[in-house]
């Protein structure tokens, strides 16, 4: 039983322990986050002032593309898989994930996928430059030759995601402790279970889209080539059939994290648990039938525009239920504001803001104006960064003491939060103004009247970037020199199986299943 971790590099290469694999996922995704962040800094540095200062327009296009791809597929998605690996077995009382060897494989192919993708930066023709949405024929007929590396990279990343999801579903359905019924599952587990089903359904569609690109480029087919009877708009339908569920894949686990943190620091159980579960399921279902709201400008019949407009607005209802429940959980609670709680509250406020701009974009006639402007960039950074990344930061502060047995420095944590919060808003609020004033996205240069807000946005972005280095410092410092803690419950109001374990969490946990009443 007392079977400790293996020594040396073998512990990581042949890892089957969910905690080790979770740790690797988290560090890998953080390194991708820094890489994608570096690209963002290059973009904002170039946009600091009008005219071309630092880089060439061709390279700028590569930066916007790689920033999007790395952040979505390399930073946010694997970070939540890492969190799932760490927390799902601990929260449902399982000894490990259901498929530990597949778990190892799904992690270890990731570095190769991203090596393929990132290696294009050093090749002739440069990295992919067609935007992270890689619309055909820009990504087929007009793409650099390196597009093939991008395609195989996406295949590998997709395979990793699918394996990770299968593992999570098998774990949640089969390895729950006795008495842990479905409606007793912590919400983080619930949201991940639903996310995993979304991933199994749509990652193959993404693989299909890039496979069709591969065929069009190399084997003379005409899926997306009008000259041969294909249709470029078909690409957009297939891409967004994947792409819209994808945004919920990113945000649902973040909702789960928030639903864990807020009750803890409100010292109250989560308000409306079952409505949270149903709202999550409703959002997941709706995500499959609204994709064409990304395509209002492709020339849709009026009936199509109306349908996709109303269906999209419908998503605000279950999302509103969630926001209502979080606020009601806090209502009359004994609130304290430790760093994880600050991040959680920021998510509730900023995500709601991003949700409202989403509603504005859902209005088909108005979208014609907003489409492909900086308003859209501002909108999706409010949901991706202030939704997913903020909740991830909160999750790390929340569970790091349990993982490492060391307490982070509360003051440093709060300072990092405020720098991130202020920097984020300075970076992205002005982008809404720029978009409404008519600044298009994905350009290396802009007209003079956009100068001021772009400068403000860049300053905010540098601030937010600095906050991430502070975050890295806080995490490393906690692990190396944090104040040791052995309290089982790090947080006074915390509920759930993970807080019944010793701190730091031993290498093997729940070898005999706990009894859940």
């Amino acid at each position, binding site marked *: 039983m007392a079977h400790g971790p293996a020594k040396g590099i073998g512990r990581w290469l042949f890892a089957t322990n969910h905690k080790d694999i979770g740790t690797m996922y988290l560090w890998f995704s953080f390194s991708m986050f820094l890489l994608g962040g570096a690209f963002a800094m290059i973009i904002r540095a170039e946009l600091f002032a009008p005219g071309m200062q630092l880089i060439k327009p061709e390279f700028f296009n590569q930066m916007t593309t790689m920033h999007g791809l790395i952040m979505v597929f390399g930073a946010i998605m694997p970070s939540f898989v890492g969190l799932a690996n760490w927390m799902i077995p601990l929260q449902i009382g399982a000894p490990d994930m259901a498929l530990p060897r597949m778990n190892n494989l799904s992690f270890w192919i990731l570095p190769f996928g991203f090596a393929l993708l990132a290696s294009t930066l050093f090749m002739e023709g440069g990295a992919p430059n067609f935007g992270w949405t890689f619309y055909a024929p820009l990504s087929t007929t007009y793409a650099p030759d390196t597009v093939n590396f991008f395609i195989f990279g996406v295949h590998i990343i997709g395979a990793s995601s699918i394996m990770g999801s299968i593992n999570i579903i098998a774990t949640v*359905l089969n390895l729950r402790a006795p008495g842990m019924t479905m409606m007793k599952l912590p919400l983080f587990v619930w949201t991940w279970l639903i996310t995993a089903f979304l991933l199994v*359904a749509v990652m193959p569609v993404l693989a299909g889209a890039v496979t069709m690109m591969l065929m069009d480029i190399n084997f003379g087919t005409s899926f997306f080539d009008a000259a041969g009877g294909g249709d470029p708009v078909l690409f957009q339908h297939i891409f967004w*059939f994947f792409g819209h569920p994808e945004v919920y894949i990113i945000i649902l686990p973040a909702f789960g994290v928030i639903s864990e943190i807020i009750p803890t620091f409100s010292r109250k159980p989560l308000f409306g648990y079952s409505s949270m579960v149903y709202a999550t399921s409703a959002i997941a279902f709706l995500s499959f039938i609204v994709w064409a709201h990304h395509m209002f400008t492709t020339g849709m019949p009026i009936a199509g525009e109306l349908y996709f407009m109303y269906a999209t607005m419908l998503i605000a209802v279950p999302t509103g239920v969630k926001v209502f429940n979080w606020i009601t959980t806090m209502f009359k609670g004994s609130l304290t504001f430790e760093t994880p709680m600050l991040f959680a509250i920021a998510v509730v406020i900023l995500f709601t803001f991003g949700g409202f701009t989403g509603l504005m974009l859902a209005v088909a006639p108005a979208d014609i104006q907003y489409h492909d402007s900086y308003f859209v960039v501002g909108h999706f950074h409010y949901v991706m960064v202030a939704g997913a990344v903020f909740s991830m930061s909160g999750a790390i502060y929340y569970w790091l003491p349990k993982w490492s047995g060391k307490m982070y420095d509360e003051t440093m944590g709060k300072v990092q939060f405020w720098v991130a919060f202020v920097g984020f808003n300075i970076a992205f609020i002005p982008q809404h103004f720029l978009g409404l004033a008519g600044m298009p996205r994905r350009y290396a240069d802009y007209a003079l009247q956009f100068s001021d807000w772009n400068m403000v946005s860049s300053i905010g972005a540098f601030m937010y970037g600095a906050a991430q280095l502070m975050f890295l410092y806080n995490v490393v410092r906690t692990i190396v020199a944090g104040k040791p803690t052995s309290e089982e419950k790090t947080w006074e109001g915390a509920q759930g199986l993970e807080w019944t374990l010793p701190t730091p969490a031993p290498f093997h946990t729940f070898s005999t299943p706990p009894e859940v009443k």
Partner: protein
Amino acid sequence: MPINATQKITLKLVVAAIGMFVFAVFLMPPLYDVFCELTGIGGKTKGQYEGAAVAVDVEREIKIQFVATNNGAMPWEFSPLDYQIRVHPGEKTAVEFYAKNPTSRDMVAQAIPNITPNNAAEFFHKTECFCFNKQELKAGEEANMGLVFIVDPKLPASVTTITLSYTLFDVTEATAAEVATTN
């Protein structure tokens, strides 16, 4: 080999994932085509019309506009002889497009039609069209390409103008590759 619950769910999910891949690659494109054809979305015209002759509705006059565009770096000169004509629904009308290959190499082109407004697409019948085939022009050669069409009298009353747009694609390389593989 008896399989346990974990293997069972894994197997199901793997099958589901493969199924979604097959759905995306093999079903979505044809379904999309069928959907567009049924609804007329995308302004795609149908192939050759072989319907019976219909009575000409002399009461009504429809304005037909022709647009000719070169795709990408296609170097051909390409334009309709008449940019705008008026026809009665049911009337068989012939028009011509002019094309010239000004380059010093033999080229093959494919014209892709599109109808605006979308809901007129299914009422615009072509009995003959240069877009049904690839067009080959030798270096410096020019040609007039024919189109014969009938506007269906069932055309919705709200439509008074139909714009037929052709985009000309350079398919020289693709055609050469086809010839090479079939020979």
